[in-house]
């Protein structure tokens, strides 16, 4: 069987086999899905890039590594991952939160980024999920189950992530009063944001294609280069793409917002009301938690169903 990176057994020993425990990453999504139950022991996942193989387009990295540090290393070879990059956030935290980057149109969702995971399960043993290759359907897909699970099924020590080439040219532009649907039709748009009035887009790709799209956008109206996306309001709503494109109708409850067009995430000023969950789905969620963590020791207090 696979040999473990030396940092894993030490991490497993720290997690141990009993008592409530959770991982503290950068703490940037600390309250997602609820507050940690009082008395929960906090541990830290190991840090560091284990192996980056640019020609394979994969990177093996310990879960406690800050996403920004990882991306800095990958950038030297012109690559990055689909994980969102914000000050302080870790690889493990980004995977466990499961929230995609605002460039999801271009990079894909976080749930497709994880190829292999080594994690400590409820009984303190180290488990492996997935494979060391970019393609694999050997057995049940534990990797997808782990992404977004908030560390309630296992505590992640090390992962293998898919990497992508960074676009040859990347430019953020702002379009005053533009129809976001028309912006979305640009082939190089890796992100299309809309605040109900103006649109922003990240164009990413070959320079010729980006230039083509820029002239197409210029035809829509005023189009100016900007440093990056607009300030995003603090709360994340998960909507359908159709709901996000028509979001201003709900402005009353959400406050000022920035919608991710074509994706469905809306960054709003007020929290999203808890979404109704089918009773059958809630029951399945409970069954998963019970099977994977019979004593409820992994990150008690957090529940992905309460994630908004």
């Amino acid at each position, binding site marked *: 069987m*696979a040999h473990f990176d030396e940092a894993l057994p030490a991490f497993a020993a720290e997690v141990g086999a009993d008592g409530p425990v959770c991982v503290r990453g950068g703490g940037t999504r600390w309250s997602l899905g609820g507050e940690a139950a009082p008395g929960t022991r906090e541990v830290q996942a190991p840090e560091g890039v284990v192996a980056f193989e640019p020609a394979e387009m994969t990177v093996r990295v310990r879960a406690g590594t800050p996403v920004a540090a990882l991306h800095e290393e990958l950038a030297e070879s012109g690559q990055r991952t689909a994980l969102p990059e914000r000050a302080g956030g870790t690889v493990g935290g980004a995977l466990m939160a499961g929230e995609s980057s605002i460039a999801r149109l271009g990079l894909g969702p976080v749930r497709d980024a994880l190829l292999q995971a080594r994690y400590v399960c409820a009984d303190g043993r180290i488990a492996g999920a997935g494979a060391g290759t970019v*393609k694999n*359907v050997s057995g049940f897909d534990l990797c997808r189950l782990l992404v977004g699970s908030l560390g309630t099924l*296992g505590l992640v020590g090390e992962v293998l992530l898919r990497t992508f080439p960074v676009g040859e040219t990347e430019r953020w532009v702002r379009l005053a009063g533009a129809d976001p649907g028309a912006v979305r039709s640009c082939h190089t748009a890796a992100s299309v944001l809309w605040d109900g009035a103006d649109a922003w887009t990240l164009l990413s790709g*070959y320079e*010729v294609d980006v230039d083509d799209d820029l002239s197409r956008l210029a035809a829509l109206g005023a189009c100016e280069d900007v440093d990056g996306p607009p300030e995003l309001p603090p709360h994340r709503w998960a909507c359908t793409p*159709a709901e996000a494109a028509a979001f201003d109708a709900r402005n009353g409850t959400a406050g000022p917002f920035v919608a991710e067009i074509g994706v469905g995430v809306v960054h709003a000023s007020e929290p999203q009301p808890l979404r109704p969950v*089918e009773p059958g789905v809630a029951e399945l*969620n409970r069954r998963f938690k019970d099977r994977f963590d019979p004593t409820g020791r992994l990150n008690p207090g957090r529940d*992905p169903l309460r994630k908004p």
Partner: protein
Amino acid sequence: MARTLAAATRRVLGSRRRGDRAAAAPAAGAADAALVADLVEAIGADRVRADAAARYLASRDASIYKEGNAGPVCYPGTTSDVVACVKVATRHGRAVSPRGAGTGLSGGAAPLGRPVVLSTTRMDRLLEIDLDNGVAWVQPGMVNLDLTRALAPHGVHYAPDPSSQAACTIGGNVGNNAGGPHCLAYGVTSAHVAAVEVVLSDGSVVTLGDLTAEPAGYDLRGAFVGSEGMCGIATAVAVRLTRNPPAVRTMLLSFDDVSDAATTVSAIIAAGIVPAAIEMMDQRCVRAVEDFAQAGYPKEAAAVLLVEVDGAAGGVAIAADRVAGIARRNQAVSVRTAADDGERARLWKGRKSAFGAVANVMPDYYLHDTVVPRTRLVEVLERIYDIVDRHDLLVLNVFHAGDGNLHPILAYDSRVPGAEERVHAAGREIIEMSLDMGGALTGEHGIGVEKREYMDRMFSPVDLDQQSRLRASFDPHCRMNPGKVLPSAHSCSDIGALKAADAAGVWG
């Protein structure tokens, strides 16, 4: 191994060979009479068959596995028909196995322990195209290619395109998390399923995933895709629609040396280019394909690469030039670009008819499906030729080279004494070698029964215990397609479910 993959493929792809072994399917026994009567009462006489011919056809898939044994076969038309069948089966203590087109290559759809087989062939409708949300809802029995054809007028398509797409179903694609040539850039089935309506083993209906960006709770949709019919029955699938690329360029690169072709694959990826597809064929395969499909491949080449780049026009031209440059630097003897859609279709026809073509080389073949790191293709191909030589066999290589997904085809004649044993021995070595290289047991065909006993070569007991927890969360009593994927030591309840049918007499 009385039946062969070649024969299975011929059956699957149309020219049906008469089921002369229909009579060989064990008698259902009087014990099934009550079960059949209840199924008929639940969904109607025209939707249930228990005769030997129907059960024979439902007892195997396109793999070489021939021990499947179907109980009554149901052809539900709606989700409520499926619910009704599951409930009847449960009442009779019988398992349920879902079945799409039966093109699977790992024995996943081969029923074990005489379960009630639910064939989705009559659930083949496109339910809704929702362009605003970029999805279409389809019934599980819809054929992959029919879906893509139905979407064409809207300028979108369904990206996963298995070579069997003219026959295989969306439900079967979900069951196996199927791939295809274009999954290199676009991702396999799991990346293209937004939500699935599933009938669980207790007969309840749940929708896993939804059309929002980030559904609440665990990613149960992700956990379900690729579960080989063991977690429930998909009764409707919301598939993602992919916009047709504005420009496409398809190239055929040929080489005098297999290693140069393999090096080119690794070099393209290393240069940061992600083509839509990179497929490789070696000389024996090229020749078989040419004789069969006249796709215009150079028969003198030691290997060819079929590379497709797509996207916006300018970038496509640049990427194509770079690919051609990399190929030339690696001694490509010719670089041909399809001049029009007709030529492009012909090039792809060659690739997609490769398995059919093999049937003309030898009467039987065994197709393997493993994955290796794509940077190690040169070494891996040398090892495969070496293994095959040592076992005195013939191999044709045709595979998804861009993601390291090998499909060595061992062609043989089962009438030659000892041939099957040699095929199995070589297959085992190929699997072991792939794992030793840091690879995976299967890239798209699934574990089924064929690779079940190899699972503990790739996973530790703890890993497998975690996988069986996933399965048991969906199906605590192991009533859905029991006996697959997990090696016997990790599927104790499955064994219980399988034994139940042997004792069927008691319910008679």
